């Protein structure tokens, strides 16, 4: 009897807790039923994404949308990208929030597709506003689940004036690229500012590997066990990155340099190239208005063997939540974003290129990237690695060679990690 008495308190506590928890759950569902609409018949849709820096531009877009659609109110919710990566699925999974939401290409898109979080947008009339090739990243099994809205070229940026000063032009082969770097180094300029501590390996590997493995599914094969990092394409890529490092073409101790510091070297014109992507053009110009910038990709093979001129990524993939209570209103918002003038406003205000056709870009930086639309580019190879741990193993093998490991050994170590994942 005494023992039973002792049990009363924990049992009562558990009961109260379970009531509280179920009340919380019920509250969510109850409110979500009403959430989307008010008494006046106005529907509220939630738009969730990670680009806080675009809030002002998107608020203007939302204002314009609400003027055109007085019965729809868009509530924008932004989270920092790290937090977005870790919490978005729990927020959108019951449909109470994120009627329109953004997702990353690659691992997140795959996981969301598998979970059925996307509404199938195949056949929607507004899809014709986009460059069909550039929205492929939002497709799965032939269905369009998300629309990649932003377009990035993951090619190194170069300082046009510095190139002109030393009579340099973008090279067409590996020997030409090495000679270009040497000329810059001989003149006291850092050839390539490389953020080895964070984004550098993940960005630079794309253009370095694109012609060493001239196929858009080489990493898909690696993850399927049909190709290995110890194969020639990756060992050669690592060897060439090591060569650039050993010859002093990256700044000293590149492995300890983070993105802002590498960016500063380029902005201050101490470095002639910055191993990042077109997304950084506007920010660089803002900090140094004298900069004249263009994009170039290192060609790692002979000119006649080069299949690709550069790398593109389409991201900020907009989708309609499959659990949304207001899918038609959510689609209407996507349709509005797809208009060339609306997309143009967004692009010009944020400094980001978009995947929408016939957009007029105002700034030279956006036009620079726009010129690349006609070049032969491949979708960012790193994002074709769907497992985050495998992605890390690949980029870490670059860090390994920069810290002195031989390319063969670094490739072997990374392959061993991937083998473990394949085996699961």
């Amino acid at each position, binding site marked *: 009897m005494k023992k039973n008495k002792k049990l009363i*308190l*924990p049992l009562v*506590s*558990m009961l*109260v*807790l379970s009531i*509280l*928890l179920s009340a919380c759950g019920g509250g969510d569902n109850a409110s979500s039923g009403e959430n989307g609409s008010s008494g006046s018949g106005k529907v509220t849709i939630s738009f969730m994404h990670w680009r806080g820096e675009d809030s002002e531009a998107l608020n203007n877009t939302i204002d314009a949308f609400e003027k055109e659609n007085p019965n729809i109110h868009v509530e924008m919710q932004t989270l920092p990208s790290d937090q977005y*990566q*870790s919490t978005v*699925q729990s927020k959108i*999974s019951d449909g109470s929030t994120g009627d329109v939401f953004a997702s990353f290409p690659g*691992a*997140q898109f*795959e*996981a*969301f597709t*598998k*979970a*059925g*979080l996307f509404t199938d947008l195949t056949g929607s009339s507004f899809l014709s506003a986009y460059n069909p090739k550039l929205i492929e990243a939002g497709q799965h099994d032939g269905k369009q689940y998300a629309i990649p809205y932003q377009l990035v070229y993951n090619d190194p940026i170069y300082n046009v004036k510095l190139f002109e000063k030393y009579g340099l032009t973008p090279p067409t082969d590996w020997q030409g690229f090495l000679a270009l770097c040497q000329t810059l180094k001989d003149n006291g300029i850092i050839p390539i500012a490389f953020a*080895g*501590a*964070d984004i550098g390996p993940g960005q630079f590997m794309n253009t370095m590997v694109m012609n060493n493995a001239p196929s858009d599914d080489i990493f898909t094969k690696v993850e399927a066990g049909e190709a290995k990092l110890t194969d020639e394409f990756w060992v050669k890529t690592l060897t060439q990155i090591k060569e650039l490092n050993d010859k002093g073409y990256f*700044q*000293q*101790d*590149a*492995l*300890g*340099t*983070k993105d*802002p*510091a590498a960016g*500063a*070297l380029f902005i201050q014109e101490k470095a002639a190239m910055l191993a990042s992507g077109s997304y950084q053009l506007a920010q660089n110009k803002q900090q140094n208005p004298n900069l004249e910038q263009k994009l170039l990709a290192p060609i790692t093979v002979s000119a006649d063997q080069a299949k690709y001129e550069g790398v593109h990524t389409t991201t900020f993939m907009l989708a309609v939540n499959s659990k949304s209570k207001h899918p038609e209103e959510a689609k209407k918002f996507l349709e509005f974003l797809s208009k060339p003038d609306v997309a143009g406003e967004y692009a010009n205000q944020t400094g980001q290129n978009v995947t929408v056709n016939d957009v007029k870009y105002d700034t030279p930086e956006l036009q620079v990237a726009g010129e690349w639309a006609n070049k032969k580019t491949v979708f960012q190879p790193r994002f074709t690695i769907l*497992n*985050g*741990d*495998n*992605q*890390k193993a690949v980029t*870490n*093998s670059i*860090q*390994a060679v*920069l*810290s002195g*490991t031989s390319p063969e050994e670094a490739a072997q170590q990374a392959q*061993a*990690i991937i083998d*473990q*994942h394949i085996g*699961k």
Partner: protein
Amino acid sequence: MKNRIQLSLFLLPGLLLYVALFVFPTLTGLFYSFTDWDGVSPSYAFVGMDNYKDSLSSIVFRKAFGNNVEFMLTVVIAQTFISLVLALLLVRNTKTRVVLRALYFLPAILSSVSVGLIWAFMYDPSIGLINYGLNEAGMGSMAHNWIGDPKIAIYSIAAVQVWAHAGQMMIVFIAGLQGIPAELYEAARMDGGSKWQVFRTVTWPLLAPSATIVVAYTTIQSFKAFDLIFTMTDGGPNYATEILTTYIYHTAFGSYSFGLASAGSMIFLVLLALLTLLQFKALRADRVSY
């Protein structure tokens, strides 16, 4: 009986919070550790002990565990020593002690994310303050690639962890020192004991309870570190600073393997519990009474 009911009512909110914030998530994690749940899908399959086997045989998990131990030992030894030295220096009645105590304690109130971001910037080999300062002071040979060199990166972060928390532990030691009766020192000095002898025979044995707290707290705190490493290196370069907490985070949110990450969390929880238990058992034996 009335008292008991009142006591129970007082305990209830705490118990509810404990169940909601610890017991419930732990049990949920334990459940998912036996599944292949990806963290998003509504469905999952039970995989038995596979996640545990995969975690324990994972190259990255093992490397992370080794780094965890290295980081913990470095922090515990350095932080205990430095905080003790600071306490011994600042327990005296000097005019500057209040200001100095506040200064040394200050880093403890800063957010570890801010601390990590600031120190990562200071450690930058090209534009960081540390190498710049060393070069300006004519000690350029000591300039280093602090968080970019895989051989020393973990120690560079450990130094920041110590910087951030040594002041906090100094306060614990100061409280312990102030609790030692002055007559014991007088007796020791009258017996002709040197400073070192007084420290060894009086101060240190009587500081054992404070040392227990400092070592136990520092061990647990450094073993479950996350923010500093996440913001400074994110486990890099090439897994040199990957520890179990960052491994679990990357497994869950990088590759959407929640089942595997949950198994990693459970192993981590057991390791932490064992460590805490061992700590208290080992250090309880050192207690001295007077």
